[in-house]
């Protein structure tokens, strides 16, 4: 299935390449332990799902790089977006997620 795209092996999110219906099950065809995810809610084209459960404060990784942190608990297969993750980058704040 090409409905979800994982960019980098370090990523903990995947991007929907098509609208995905609630209840869809999916097994990533990438290296690593075989897992089957059930996607609990509808995911629009272009949006992301969690590949594993995330707790508040966990880093969200896409492109093999941290793109933000979870602000809420996100189940495996759950929708990952502005309602439950936040940027490490605040405009005008040059701190880079704790890095110099």
């Amino acid at each position, binding site marked *: 299935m090409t409905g979800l*795209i994982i960019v980098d092996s370090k990523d903990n999110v995947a991007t929907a390449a098509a609208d995905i219906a609630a209840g869809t099950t999916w097994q990533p065809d990438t290296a690593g332990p075989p897992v089957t995810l059930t996607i609990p809610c509808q995911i629009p084209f*272009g949006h992301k799902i969690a590949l594993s459960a995330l707790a508040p404060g966990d880093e969200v990784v896409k492109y093999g790089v941290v*793109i933000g942190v979870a602000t809420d608990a996100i189940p495996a297969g759950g929708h990952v977006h502005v309602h439950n993750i936040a940027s490490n980058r605040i*405009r005008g704040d*040059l701190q880079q997620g704790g890095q110099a």
Partner: protein
Amino acid sequence: MSFDHFMGYRRSDGRVGIRNFPLVIAVMDNCNPLARRIAGAVRGAVPIVAAYGRGQKGEDQRVHDTTLINYGSHPNCQAALVVGLEHVTAERIAGEIAKTGRPVDWIDVQGQGGTLNAFADGVRRLNALIDASPARLERALVSDLVIGLECGGSDALSGISGNAAMGVVSDRLSAAGATLILSEIEEIIGAENFLADRAATEEVRAKLLAAVARCEKHADHMGLNMAPLGEDNILGGLSTTEEKSLGAIRKSGTSPLNEVFANGERPSKRGVVFLDAPAPGTENTTALGAAGAHMILFNTGRGNPIGNPVSPTIKLTGSPDTASRMADNIDVDLSQIVTEGMDFDSAADRIMDMMRQTAAGRLTASELHGDTEISISRIDNGFLRILAETDPDIAALT
């Protein structure tokens, strides 16, 4: 490799063009209608007309002037006629173009005694320039090429489809010795450290980070919230500015970043270089053209028709919807990456085949439609003065 050489027009400065455009360059906007009229009377001639130009000050004048001079000496330019209101500016711009060895002449409306005389004399002078510039095609290598990298109207799939395929092209051409220009300073924010890790030297790293810092200070100075994501980005699934910027820089591949240079200037290094110019499509492609890009790869998610009049602009999309909805404007449809799992190497092959055809004279969609425009950035000179006082370290590097 599907594209390793091409037949091009060798110029006296050693550069090689993939087009042989006679250009009519208006040095200020009050001459734009005349420049368009002269170009319209000479088959194949291209008008270079931009807003402003009169009474420019400081950095605005530098960017405006060097942009026009770099178009007049662009490798795709056969010869240039400079059109001015008065002789001082026209002669100055034409003089700088002449130093590059490109055939050039100038007229001024005041000196010619009005529009009609200037039109007739302008057409005669442009024809004379063309007559005196015999075309000579030579075999050239892709290492002679400068390629602009652009994305616009991005959606959440841009970074993992079209930009990723463009990244493979960048890696291949960088390895072959070509020059790839990444730009769009606002679209670096949030990914600058990731990009800076590719900097070839400490100086390149410092200049890149300073350019981003200046961009953010400018937003602060204006009291604006530089919203990193638009509503359409969020609806499309982009969640953070890091995610958007990481997707944008992906079009430059993975090879070292060898230089950071200013808007209006040309790169001095090969491989991947960064042009510190604003992101909007017309403004950025204008800067890429002035930097000497022979052609521009422009990935669009939601669709954007614009191209550059001198640097043929190849439109890519990874969006199945845009590929069908805006088929008129798309040169390379890469939507099979998401619909059928087409791999990036195959996608890059498609892009390079279109680059080969474009270099051989195939018109891009924006050339075919005449969807080409020039827009030269204007700078807030007051902000630059304040930045020099408050953040001299940043100001010194940008």
